[in-house]
């Protein structure tokens, strides 16, 4: 039976943490651990979730959890999986929770190596689109036009100049057994994907978009709505990669307004109508690609 609110493990494994109110990333970690259960071994590199979860003596993980080096999330997962296997333990899930910087910038090489070895691990990237923990610096998953402290909005250059790195397809290009994208706005879809990944042997990667009220400049109670809207307006998509094929899980019948989505966040408030048109046309190009290549 599909996992849902009623069938989900009632035990909380990520509790009492010091994340900002309305944090999308902590919701992703909480739900993933509930689906994976008590025997999950969590690895967290430097980033929000390790900063809010391990403030000795306030230790907020109820299962085994460890902080890795920033670049070594996937390497440590490899080691944990091999170590437990060598001890004859089979009933566990090695799961990593890295932010967008820890995945697409700093941890990319280790992740690529783990996928190449096809180690039996689950890597979850909670993508809040900048280095939020250190005070909102641009990462390679920061979208075009977003204002961060390292890509400020001025008169000539308005925020980040580069588009968001296509992490999902980079991972899929390795020929990984399972990869997926998700959003905290569609939490049932995310739960289904974690449940599916739990049963697959080999490397699994899930990329979940997790809004950050502090860094995005939204109200704390808007997290879920914004995470839904980003999918509905077509700037993010819910998809899976399995057996060498891409599959689209959700296709909005009609896209909601990109401008409305952007203008709700203070990191995009400086954008001109022309900038929004650029974002809209890049969205359309992306969806053309999706329709051509995804099932």
């Amino acid at each position: 039976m599909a996992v849902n609110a009623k069938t989900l493990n009632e035990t909380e494994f990520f509790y009492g943490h010091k994340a900002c109110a309305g944090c999308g990333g902590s919701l992703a970690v909480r739900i993933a651990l509930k689906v994976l259960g008590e025997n999950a071994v969590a690895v967290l590199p430097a980033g929000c979730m390790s900063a809010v979860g391990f403030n000795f003596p306030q230790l907020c993980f109820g299962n085994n959890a460890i902080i890795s080096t920033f670049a070594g999330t996937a390497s440590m997962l490899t080691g944990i999986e091999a170590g437990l296997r060598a001890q004859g333990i089979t009933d566990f899930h090695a799961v990593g929770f890295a932010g967008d910087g820890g995945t697409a910038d700093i941890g990319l090489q280790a992740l690529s190596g783990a996928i190449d070895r096809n180690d039996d691990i689950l890597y979850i990237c909670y993508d809040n689109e900048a280095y939020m923990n250190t005070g909102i610096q641009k990462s390679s998953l920061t979208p075009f036009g977003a204002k961060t402290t390292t890509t400020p909005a001025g008169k000539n250059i308005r925020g980040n100049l580069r588009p968001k790195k296509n992490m999902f397809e980079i991972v899929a290009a390795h020929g990984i057994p399972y990869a997926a994208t998700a959003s905290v706005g569609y939490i049932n879809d995310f739960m289904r994907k974690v449940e599916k990944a739990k049963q697959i042997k080999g490397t699994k990667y899930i990329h979940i978009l997790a809004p950050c009220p502090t860094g995005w400049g939204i109200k704390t109670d808007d997290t879920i709505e914004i995470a839904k809207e980003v999918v509905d307006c077509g700037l993010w998509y819910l998809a899976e990669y399995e057996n060498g094929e891409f599959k689209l899980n959700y296709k909005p019948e009609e896209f909601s307004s990109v401008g409305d989505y952007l203008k709700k966040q203070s990191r995009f408030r400086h954008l001109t109508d022309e900038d929004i048109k650029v974002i809209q046309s890049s969205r359309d190009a992306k969806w053309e690609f999706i329709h051509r290549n995804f099932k």
Partner: protein
Amino acid sequence: MKPYLRDKIPAGFDEIPDTPSYEAGYLVTKNSGWRNVRPVIDTKKCIGCLNCYLYCPDGVIFRSNHKAAIDYDFCKGCGICKKICRIGAIKMEAEK
């Protein structure tokens, strides 16, 4: 195991571990002081759909008699539960 509040806060050198590991789920502080507003559930209206429980980033909402209930020790008052509730059974009230 759910992390839970402990009585003892390790302070002296002999209580601080000399390895990088420590007991899981060891909580010594609450988060209730972060809150300006608190969610209040109208148990008459609540139908126990558990949507608020599902979307709470802090996991402070739990099931009690087929309804939702809140652990105010760790609720930060973000208001996500209020917005997600389709039948309007949750209200935000100012903390006094």
